């Protein structure tokens, strides 16, 4: 009996001494930076705000930050400054480059720096703009939906600043009408709980260059999947090459919503690549083609 009393006492002592303290921490307000540089276009607008507690209603105007000093610097290969671009506040939380004539150069590195008069945070981030590419393929006027003749996109090969280029494909409908929805998306709107607006700009998600065929001339061939077509009629098909900052943000945001190998209820932070705060300073290069998707057994 004595051994059982001893063992029980040891068990209680062990539990009491071994109780691990891993406490829930408190909400902390963070500054949020959002800016996307697009190759060949003017310098991006910058959006500054703060986070709010998770249980509160999010209204941008109430969390927008004013009186910030923003400078975007174009850097050379060795990280030295080539040019500085200053910003002015447009509305609460929205800032625009004063120089709207200078265009974002593909393949270049840019650094953003944000400081406040009335806050101590200093934010900085860098992005390397993807190389500009072109869509080389001859696009037909129309394609019959889910036919053997599938839209093919041939892209010029470009050097990647990371291991490989990362692309996103979008279809932007030019005829947004519920009667024009393709069957799968129509079912989602009519019988499901999706809003039609969700599919006006229908995205493929991030796709690595490693998925594509590389031709002998090193150009990249992609067959555009039918799942990307939400509407019949005229569509703009936009091919976008994405920098690593934006890819990190988009991928981690999808992960946070669920799926992957994480168990339900395990929610990580997004990957931000911003010093002094959170958010994204990303960049893209794009090209666009126009075509029509017609219903099967319908004359084009």
């Amino acid at each position: 009996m004595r051994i059982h009393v001893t063992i029980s006492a040891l068990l209680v002592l062990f539990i009491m001494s071994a109780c691990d303290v891993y406490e829930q921490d408190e909400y902390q307000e963070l500054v949020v930076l959002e800016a996307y540089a697009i190759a060949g276009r003017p310098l991006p607008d910058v959006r500054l705000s703060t986070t709010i507690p998770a249980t509160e209603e999010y209204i941008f105007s109430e969390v927008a930050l004013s009186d910030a000093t923003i400078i975007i610097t174009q850097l050379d290969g060795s990280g030295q400054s080539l040019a500085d671009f200053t910003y002015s506040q447009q509305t609460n939380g929205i800032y625009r480059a004063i120089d709207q004539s200078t265009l974002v150069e593909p393949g270049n590195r840019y650094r953003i720096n944000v400081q406040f008069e009335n806050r101590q945070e200093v934010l900085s981030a860098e992005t390397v703009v993807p190389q500009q590419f072109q869509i080389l393929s001859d696009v037909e006027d129309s394609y019959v939906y889910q036919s053997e003749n599938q839209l093919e996109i041939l892209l010029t090969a470009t050097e990647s600043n990371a291991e490989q280029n990362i692309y996103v494909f979008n279809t932007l409908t030019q005829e947004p009408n519920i009667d024009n929805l393709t069957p799968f998306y129509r079912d989602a709107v009519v019988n499901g709980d999706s809003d039609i607006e969700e599919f006006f700009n229908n995205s493929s998600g991030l796709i690595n260059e490693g998925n594509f065929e590389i031709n002998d001339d090193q150009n990249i061939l992609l067959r555009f999947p039918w799942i990307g077509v939400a509407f019949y009629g005229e569509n703009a098909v936009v091919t976008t090459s994405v920098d690593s900052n934006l890819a990190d943000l988009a991928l981690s945001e999808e992960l946070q919503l669920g799926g992957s190998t994480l168990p339900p209820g395990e929610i990580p932070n997004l990957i931000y690549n911003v010093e002094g705060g959170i958010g994204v300073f990303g960049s893209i290069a794009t090209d666009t083609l126009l075509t029509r998707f017609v219903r099967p057994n319908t004359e084009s």
Partner: protein
Amino acid sequence: MKRVALLILHIAIIGWVTSVHAQSSSSINGYITDSETGETLISANIALLEINRGTSTNTSGYYSITNITPGTYTLVASYIGYRQFEQEVELTGDETQRIDIEMIPAGVELEALVVESQAEREEQRNIGTTQISTELIKNLPPVIEPDVFRSVQLLPGVKAANDFSSGLYVRGGSPDQTLILLDETTVYNPSHFFGFFSTFNPDAVKDVRLYKGGYPASYGGRLGSVLTVFNKDGNRNETRGSVSLGLLASRISAEGPTGSGSWMLAFRRSTLEPVLAVLRGTTDNVPDSFYFYDINGKLNFDATDNDRLSLAFYTGTDKVLFPFGEDASIGLNYGNRTISGQWRKILSDKLFLKTTATGSRYFNNPEFSIAGTQFERTNNVYDFSLKSDLQYTPNEKHTISTGFWAGNLILRFNDSFDNQETSANRIQSRYASFYLQDEWKPANRWILNGGVRLNRFSEGDYLRLAPRLSAEFRPNSKIRLQAAYGRYYQFLTLITNEAFSGFDLWLTTDEGVPPAYGDQFVLGAKTIPFEGYGLDIEFYYRTMRDLFELDPFTGDAAGLDYRDLFRFGDGFAYGAELFFEKQVGRLTGFVGYTFGVTRRKFPGFNTDITMSNPEARFYPPKYDRLHDANIVLNYRLSQRWSTSAVFSYGTGQAYTEPLGRTEFPGVPWGNMDRESFTIGRLNASRLPSYHRMDVAFSRAGNFFGLGEAEWSFQIINIYSRRNTWFYNYDFDENPVERTEVTLLPILPSLSYTVNF
């Protein structure tokens, strides 16, 4: 002078060795079996009473007691659920007697079993080891179907992730840290019905043994634990069978003797088709096809008195075809195939050899078709191996075991998107392990077990040495104090999802992806406080190093180097387990309690985003529960009626409470604003406590005189506690709405079994 001293010493040594061999010594060996069925009994105890020398049968049901001084002895054998065996044995000089023992089942007894022998009740309860009986598996109130893994989940140290999963989380480890063996063959995805049940048919199973930690050198390849399942050999005396009808699945099994051996066949299939057909008429999104089945079989042949051959196989498949929405469907076809051929040979009274050739295949082929776009994967694991184990018992103090396990492992998975192959991977690895261990009894009260296991894995060219050590001291017949240490390596990792095991994918080490390893320290005491009762306690501490798993932030794997698919981290776990059981009388059962802590850390994960260059922090995985308790009771009301109940309680699992939120409306693709949470410490909050009570009632009877029958009625979650699985956040609402996703409600079930 020195030479004379050496000569005298040499003569003395020769004389001593000669004198040892000159003394007459006898031995006895044989198999211990069930007298009714002929099934071998694993870890049955056998002893010579007068000299208190004993041992237990190995996994083949074989025992050997050597180096016995000639004389007359009382040979006693005992095993739970059987009457004690006693026989007088007379041994003359240098004699080896083959004594095969047939033990008589205790039968239904309403009075307490009388326990007399000192060796009685002394199962092979080595440190970290638990045996679970097939009777317990069948008697517990099942979640629709009796299940081996769900019964194992009730043991201390073993946790379940949720009501829908039969996965085993043992001492803080994930399911892939437990090696699952069926008749010595590795099973790579032992689940049916998306993880709801295991692949093990209770009608076919003979022995289930879980080595929770500190497992010996004869096993390896997993960081945490080993679960061995042995199927029945088949009734050697008469042909028997059973049929069982249930709401989800039905089973039929048969077994019987051959000329010089036995056979066994068990078939199980889901029987949901009528229910689905009815639902299809009234409900959308009902699967077009959904079924699972499995077949277990074994054939035994006694070539000679000393040579036994067996061939065992398993085949099982889950298939589902499920339309969702217009122009969209999902199909899944996954399962396992195993085969093993074994030769057991008694080489001499001191040597027992077991050689097994195994083959295992796991396949998993999901298909999605959405709006004319196909996503397909073919995923196959092929594992062919040869293993051999030699047990050498030179004398009463040593039992030496040695063996090897070598094989060829092929992992093949191909992905295609829109009819284009996007990735094709074939990983072939040769593996080999060699072990040597000695169980040494230097004195009556001491058992020391030391061993070493050498592992080689060709993918990455890794060679690893793993020592093992354990010690047991018995101050008296009712107390066993135990300690163990071991180093363990793992060369495989499993990509899975807690909610759904149908897409499981295994990956291996490679150059730049080293094996995970860890150390385990265990201390324990196994006691018999009163006759017919057991009280065990164990403390454990585990480290986990170089854990490699698929990086959840990888996304699209195309174009990435193999090493870049993974994240590498560390972990640890520690805890204490209490197990109190009552083994005799009308009321039997056990209470199991676990205090357990487990943590993980991966670079770039669970960092403090308010800091620059933040470091990763340890965090609890979702299945971490501080306190976990199960009460299992079986009560025999009468000859016909019996009842059982299970009450489970656990403190809340870990989850992440979002602290802040923001939006990213400017992402240059898609229509919707990108919403996101900001998080503090990962999984720093706890769900509400979990508790649930299940009850079952069984009535034994007769099926028109053709055989015994039993009705069984069960209610799962009798007070319909809506335990929380996780919280879901709906960003379509502003502010964000949190809803609770709950686990099983009250669930009645009925089954009818006939044994003929």
